[in-house]
């Protein structure tokens, strides 16, 4: 690479005077972690454990299991952060191919859990291939689009959309509405960050609107129920509307100051369903009140903005697209979950990221943050 190109690369960064790209790399950069992001993530997980302790009726075993998962997830994050974006980019098509192949395998031979086929059983490990796609789809799209100048041409948008739709449809068939939504949003986010034209965005929205009735026909009965219940939760107070009604009562009765940690009656007396998984946000609302929730949302906002800053400061296209998309998928988690629990959105099985009890999504999310940190810390230095 000629020196001029190197300069061009450096100056292509929006933060042209980025100190990261000059001088000796600092401690955090050498271990390929981002200190602000790491601190926010640790604070979030710490708070999450505290809430979980309350939501699980002060069951230390649940907290312990979650702590082990967090350990694994943070370990994976640190490991992934060590991989350079260039290497990640080269792995992208392979990871995507393997992921889609496993999704097909799930449909053919997968385990049935809660009326849906989501799991592949490898004897020792059971895991959900759909989780891989949450990373593989944005990587694949970033790989596809980063080879050419941005904004992408129509043909590449169509190809990218196709690459997104294949796993989305396969996951929706399992059926797992929540995950397919997240994977689809990952694809959309890559295209958005890539600078897809507004005209194209509008036409895509028009296509989605046109397809919606068809999707409605294809939905399972329980999925339709969820949407209908969302539109009028009081219609079925003991059935599917129960979740929403009880979670609104929990949040509303928390008021400004909350009922206090471990004092939520809605959660402790078991009125609130799925209180340590999808509906844990309602426990926070009940026990910590409006102030507690504002603090939590501020923490989420900080993490998202930090991720976007990292995306903006990334040195190459692949890094920008991937970091931006992964951060925005994290936002989709936050928004869909809080929207669902507060009754703004239909009940879709999306956990509150890094707080809800359960391992799979947490591991994927932390791997995603590993990628973001890696993008931020593996930099081509100018020898100044």
């Amino acid at each position: 690479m000629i020196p001029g190109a190197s300069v061009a690369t450096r100056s292509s960064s929006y933060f042209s005077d980025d100190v990261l790209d000059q001088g000796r790399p600092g401690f955090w950069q050498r271990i390929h972690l981002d200190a602000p992001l790491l601190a926010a993530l640790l604070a979030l997980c710490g708070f999450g454990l505290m809430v979980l302790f309350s939501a699980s009726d002060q069951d230390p075993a649940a907290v312990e299991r979650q702590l082990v998962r967090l350990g694994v997830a943070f370990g994976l994050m640190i490991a992934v952060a060590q991989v350079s974006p260039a290497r990640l980019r080269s792995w992208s098509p392979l990871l995507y191919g393997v992921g889609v192949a496993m999704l097909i395998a799930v449909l053919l031979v997968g385990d049935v859990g809660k009326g849906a086929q989501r799991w592949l059983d490898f004897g020792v490990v059971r895991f959900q291939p759909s989780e891989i796609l949450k990373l593989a789809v944005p990587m694949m799209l970033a790989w596809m689009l980063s080879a050419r100048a941005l904004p992408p041409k129509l043909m590449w948008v169509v190809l990218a959309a196709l690459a997104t739709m294949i796993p989305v449809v396969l996951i929706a068939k399992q059926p797992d509405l929540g995950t397919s939504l997240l994977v689809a949003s990952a694809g959309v986010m890559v295209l958005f960050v890539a600078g897809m034209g507004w005209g194209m965005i509008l036409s895509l929205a028009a296509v989605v609107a046109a397809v919606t009735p068809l999707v409605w026909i294809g939905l399972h009965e329980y999925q339709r129920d969820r949407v209908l219940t969302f539109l009028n939760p009081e219609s079925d107070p003991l059935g599917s509307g129960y979740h929403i009604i009880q979670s609104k009562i929990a949040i509303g009765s928390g008021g400004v100051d909350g009922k206090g940690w471990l004092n939520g009656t809605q959660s402790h007396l078991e009125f609130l369903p799925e209180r340590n998984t999808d509906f844990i946000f309602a426990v926070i609302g009940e026990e910590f009140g409006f102030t507690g929730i504002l603090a939590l949302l501020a923490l989420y906002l900080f993490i998202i903005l930090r991720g976007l800053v990292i995306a903006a400061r990334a040195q190459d296209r692949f890094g920008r697209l991937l970091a931006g998309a992964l951060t925005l998928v994290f936002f989709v988690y936050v928004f869909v979950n809080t929207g669902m629990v507060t009754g703004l959105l239909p009940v879709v099985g999306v956990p509150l990221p890094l707080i809800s009890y359960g391992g799979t999504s947490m591991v994927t999310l932390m791997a995603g943050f590993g990628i973001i940190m890696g993008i931020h810390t593996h930099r081509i230095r100018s020898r100044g």
Partner: protein
Amino acid sequence: MLEANLEDRKREARLVASRTWIAATLVIVALSLVVVRLTHLQVDQHDHFSVLSRDNRVKVQPLPPARGLVYDANGVLLADNHPSFSLEITIEKVDDLDATIEELSRVILIEPRDRARFERQKQQRMRFQGVPIRLNLTPTEVARFAVDGHRFAGVDIRAELVRTYPLGEDTAHVLGYVGRINEQELARIDKSNYAGSHFIGKGGLEKAHEALLHGQVGYQQVEVNARGRVIRTLESQPPVSGKDLHLYLDIGLQQVAKEALGEERGAVVALDPRNGGILALVSNPSFDPNLFVEGISQADYQALLSSPDKPLFNRAVRGQYPPGSTIKQFVALAGLTAGVTTSRRATYCSGAFSLPGHSHRFRCWRRGGHGALSLEQALVQSCDVYFYDLANRLGIDRLSGFLSDFGFGALTGIDVAGELGGLMPTREWKQRVRKQSWYPGETLIVGIGQGSFLATPLQLAVATAAVANHGKVIRPQVARAAQAPGAAAAEQLPMVSHTIALADEHQWELIIDAMAKVVESGTARRIRSTEYRIAGKTGTSQVFSLGQNQRYNAATLPKHLKDHALFVAFAPVEDPRIALAVIVENGGGGGATAAPVARRIMDAYLGGASVPSVPNDSGGERGD
């Protein structure tokens, strides 16, 4: 080329950066939306949701009162409550009823009989009221369910007090029984007071004194979890148990009366003429009231319904029979007080009576006739012709008017639910019901207690007691007093009475003497007692009518067409302590069948030992 590339890259970086900022803006807008929503929920509507949250966790539970117990005159317990554990399903809280029961049956034995009862009671339940799937759980079963109970939402063990009747059949027709509250009763009762109660009096004393026996419901405020399990009690107001009832009824006498009837279908009502207290009230055959408490099985119920002896039929208060000659003393009193006859006036009985200008012969039970008879002799011999003549001279208006004062044709007001009023025929009644005018001949028939005249054994006993009391008609009562829980003494229930005034008070003595002679030398002479004097009157009530010239022959008649035997009496004549009415269905003559039953009861009550020996009349002739 390189410069162009550089420009492109710069533009591209700016594009991505601008998209990043747009994204950041959208993120902030979206999260603000969530914050606005939260402000709405947590700030604006906080009070509303606080109330909902409190309603969720705080439930008001009714505490059912214990039902009052029932004791006889000597303190023998007749109706008890015993603790019982039952397994209940609240159908509204169960998603798949059949699957739940299927699953339950693996933990606790559920027999087809239990299923059948459950299905039956399910139809009649109140909403959100548990329906028992199993009764009388053993301690082992309770423990087994406690282990697995968490798997069964809407299924609970309930400890409750269940009514039992230790003397069963002996008391069934007096006490009645309690059963589960059904929809019709629900519409009638005070729902808040019955909020925790599952049982209500279905008949007899249990129904008549429901208000006293039931008690006052209590409440507790409890904190419950989503599955309805009680976490702790916040506040409570204890229930007030129902009042215990102390009866006039003497269970010993009741059993004697039942034994005296033996296998015969019939009824006995014995009361204390001084206060109207029911000493014994028997309807034979009887049934086991305990079967009804938790809901009787279809098979048992069918068996009771289809029995030709009608064990469920309370003959004592619902059996309406032509009273026959047992009302002749009242007709005599009517004649005396109206002045249409005197003690000295004689009437000639030729064996039949015809109204002037009519050919129809109203026959006396003695075909040969009694000859000339005074009023006293007419009663002792129970001469029909004398009373045809007397009734004819009284006329139906005065006759039924006077007899109504003794309570005929109206409810006595006894505290046994389900009583019927009999029928005292009047001109007005006939016009209203039969749309016909009154025929003089009917008056004659009424004068000997036949025709459309109907009376219950209870009414006969009450009217007989009134004679013993010289006209004081007392409302009969089974319960003497009610004792509130914890109260030192029982509170006497009020006595209600009215008095019939005669023109001459000596007329009571006249009639009582005649009744005493009925037992000493008349139609009931076989029960004559040396220990105390009995005043009585026999009667026979026709089950089917004979033609003008047919003869009644008991020997050739099937049992169910035989006459009903009746007997009313009180004793001792000088100081009456017991008055009674006995009916033996298809028993033939009153003196032969019903009077000995009465004698055994009076002996048991008054302490006489001798029981009448072998009957000396063949009773082949219809009459008494």
